[in-house]
């Protein structure tokens, strides 16, 4: 039979035609295959790669922030979670799905859930099964959030699904001992910001927010479907300003997946571990900072301390404050917090009239203009001065009596400064204030510094006030730091630091550099005798005058108190520096108070805060060699 067929085939031309047709088809197929394999291979390989590979991006932890002694002010706290690797559970999902399908087999088709719903039920059931294991080990009663789980499966299947978050160390320990190494349940660690000193320097350090789209640098696979773990970004303070430096180096991995998106084991695909960001070493001294904040407990205001020689900021405190630990990873503003104004960094954003601390500027302006002569300029203070037909009171209503420059600074006599301020003139006083940096922001490395500090003078009033005429009373006001001049506590501290160095400007910085060279700016331009008169007045103020409550036993210093009003708020100021012989630390403190407190003043309210800072500094610092001064202090 077969022989017959062979014979028939050989003789039938139609069969040959058929053979030729088949051969032609095969050749076409081979041709297409060759074309695809040789000419289109790159294109299809690329398509397959894009379809079969997924990229997972893991942001690196942020760098730490340290104080000048190396204490961690902001670090990263490990956050332990238990995650379920859904990508490993495909077979379990399938088995559960079949079980559910079988259970619903007898239910009428109309009442039966559709395939999608059954798949969701199956997934939730499997996840709950694993969660029950955790509940048993940890004695919890957690349940799976079905909607959350389904969203995760649909959008980020490759990423582990978090079943339990922020575990206690004991829980984490139980789990690593009880969960099998090969289990789809694994303990996962991520990092979250941690502020070991809680609210200390909260405004300066800042806080972070959640970054849902962390940047990826130099990691291949940009064209692949990418899943990104959440990162953090700086939203305030140093966290914001140095965000770029603090950001960690993003890590990532590329996984091979099957058409359903489940991970397939594969090797030799790119993988890079995330790397922690750069650390920042601040100039803050946490001991001094805490001392200042403790002294300001329950108050509203700000305190700043600077290293006089380098301009490094030792303390930058603002009250009320907040604990950034309660705001990570998510910032959840609370109504009461918003109302109390804790977000305002009063040290750099508070706009305050400088009060009697401004008398230092008035004195320098008068000395430089020649209107004040230390040896002969005196005033007789009866407790007020009539300027035009208006009575300008001194803070001591009974009057100070006769006062020279030193005595006026010591006792903060308004009448002396009314008199000589009027002689000096508002333009020169304002120019002196600007020379000391009161007219512009300090440029400290913090966001949202008060950018338009104001030094009032006739030109300013003409431009910005409804009543454009400058009266002698305005001059009297600005001479004692009242009126429209507004500064920040940081500017006040910079002024004192500059004065202590005998210079006109201090550039504050929050970055600590070991052995930083001292700042050098233009000198004040006062003869030594005039300069010494100001220091003597301030030294007496610190020792026996209005600033005496700031005095620290065994530490010489210079101070100037002040009281001012802003609207219905009283302000208590005290600026100081120490030691007198070899100035190292400058301090400025302002506290807000109520008008109904008669005793409210810089010498009584702000002085204890200055004292606390100086005491902490004295306890901690190694004293430099003492140089004698050539004037009488007491």
């Amino acid at each position, binding site marked *: 039979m077969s022989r017959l067929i062979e014979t028939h085939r050989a003789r039938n031309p139609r069969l040959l035609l058929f053979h030729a047709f088949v051969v032609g088809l095969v050749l076409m197929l081979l041709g297409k295959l060759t074309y695809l394999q040789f000419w289109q291979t790159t294109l299809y390989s690329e398509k397959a790669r894009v379809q079969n590979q997924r990229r997972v991006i893991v942001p690196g932890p942020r760098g730490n922030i340290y104080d000048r002694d190396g204490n961690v002010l902001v670090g990263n706290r*490990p956050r332990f979670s238990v995650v379920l690797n859904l990508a490993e559970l495909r077979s379990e999902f399938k088995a559960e799905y079949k079980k559910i399908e079988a259970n619903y087999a007898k239910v009428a088709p109309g009442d039966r859930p559709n395939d999608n719903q059954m798949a969701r039920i199956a997934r939730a059931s499997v996840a709950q099964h694993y969660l029950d294991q955790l509940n048993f080990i940890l004695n919890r009663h957690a349940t799976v959030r079905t909607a959350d789980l389904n969203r995760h499966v649909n959008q980020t299947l490759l990423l582990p699904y978090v079943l339990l978050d922020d575990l206690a160390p004991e829980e984490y320990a139980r789990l*690593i*001992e009880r969960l099998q*190494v*090969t289990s789809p349940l694994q*303990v996962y660690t991520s990092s979250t910001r941690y502020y070991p000193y809680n609210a200390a320097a909260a405004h300066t350090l800042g806080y972070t927010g959640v970054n849902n789209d962390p940047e990826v640098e130099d990691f291949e696979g940009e064209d692949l479907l990418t899943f990104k773990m959440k990162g953090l970004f700086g939203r305030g303070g140093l966290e914001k300003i140095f965000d770029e430096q603090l950001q*960690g180096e993003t890590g990532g991995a590329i996984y091979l997946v099957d058409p359903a998106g489940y991970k397939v084991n594969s090797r030799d695909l790119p993988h890079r571990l*995330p790397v922690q960001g750069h650390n920042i070493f601040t100039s803050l001294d946490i001991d001094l900072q805490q001392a200042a904040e403790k002294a300001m407990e329950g108050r509203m205001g700000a305190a700043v301390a600077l290293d006089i020689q380098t301009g490094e900021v030792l303390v930058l405190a603002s009250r009320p404050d907040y604990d950034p630990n309660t705001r990570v990873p998510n910032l959840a503003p609370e109504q009461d917090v918003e109302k109390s104004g804790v977000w305002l960094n009063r040290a750099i954003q508070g706009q305050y009239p400088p009060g009697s601390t401004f008398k230092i500027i008035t004195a320098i302006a008068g000395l430089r203009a020649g209107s004040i002569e230390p040896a002969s300029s005196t005033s007789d203070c009866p407790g007020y001065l009539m300027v035009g037909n208006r009575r300008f009171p001194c803070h001591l209503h009974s009057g100070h009596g006769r006062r020279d420059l030193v005595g006026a600074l010591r006792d903060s006599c308004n009448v002396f400064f009314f008199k000589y301020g009027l002689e000096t003139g508002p333009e020169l006083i304002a120019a002196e204030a600007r020379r000391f940096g009161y007219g512009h922001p300090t440029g400290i490395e913090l966001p949202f510094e008060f950018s338009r500090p104001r030094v009032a003078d006739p030109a300013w009033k003409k431009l910005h006030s409804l009543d454009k005429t400058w009266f002698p009373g305005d001059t009297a006001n600005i001479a004692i730091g009242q009126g429209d001049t507004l500064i920040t506590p940081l500017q006040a501290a910079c002024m004192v630091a500059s004065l202590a160095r005998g210079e006109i400007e201090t550039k504050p910085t929050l970055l600590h550099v070991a052995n930083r060279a001292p700042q050098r700016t233009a000198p004040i331009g006062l003869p030594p005798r005039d300069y010494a008169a100001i220091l003597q007045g301030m030294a007496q103020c610190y020792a026996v005058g209005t600033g005496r409550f700031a005095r620290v036993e065994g530490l010489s210093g210079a101070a100037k108190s002040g009281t001012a009003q802003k609207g219905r708020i009283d302000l208590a100021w005290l600026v100081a520096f120490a030691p007198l012989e070899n100035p190292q630390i400058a301090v400025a403190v302002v506290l807000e108070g109520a008008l109904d407190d008669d005793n409210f003043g810089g010498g009584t309210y702000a002085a204890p805060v200055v004292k606390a800072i100086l005491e902490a500094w004295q306890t901690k610092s190694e004293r430099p060699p003492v140089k004698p001064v050539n004037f009488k202090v007491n």
Partner: protein
Amino acid sequence: MLPKRFDQARPFATLGFVLLGWLFVPLVLKTFTRATFFEIQAPLTVADSFVRDLQTFWSNRLHSKDELLKAGQQVAGLAAQYDFSVQQNEQLQAEILRLENLLKLPSMPAFRYEPARVARRDFSGWWQRMIIRKGANYGITTGAPVVFAGGVAGRVTEVYRYTAVVDLITSPTFRLAASVAGDSRPISYQGGLNNSFKSPRGTVEFVPLDIYATRGVTKRLVTSGLGGVFPPGLSLGEISSLELSPDGLFKYGEVSLDERLGSLTEVTVLVPLNPEEF
């Protein structure tokens, strides 16, 4: 009649059919078969172990009297030391009991100590485990800690009637919550890929940043007791190196384990008195 070629391939075909059939056998039956196989194999393993013991016994008998006398003296010295330790332990236990009564504290979860002879060891890279000559017949349960003179030996992973399988501390599948001696913070200890004839090693993860260890200055790693399986304070090994993890959150490093893990002959299983707590 089947073609001759098929006849030749019949054994392979049969094997193929059997394997195919095995694929469809229910899981319960497979597990049962495996367990039965192990149970059948167990007497052979145990017998083999006894034979080896006998062999050791006879080889020991070949030692001269002088050697035996010296060994006896050493043993006597050790026994005296152990006697002293036992007395100290008894005193300490009495003190613990007194304090517990005084403070009305509940007693710590107690274990029953079940010494067991090692029947077979498997220290290949894959199976860092051993079989001990006691099983369910002595009340040994799955998950029970296993210790030896040097500290933790492993954990019971499978229990049969007369034998039990112990996952050794050197195994990559062994993990527990440890801590550095004198520090209460938990650290994850895991076995490593240990090659035969090399010093046993494990790894530690999630080590707090303020813990330092080098080859010169090692840190003793002990069980933390936080995991609820192992009692606290059992020695695991010495942390011999630590490195900062890339994310900067922790350190990770290597643990040098007791060399005697490679020649274990006797271990003790800590059988929990109240298994429900474990």
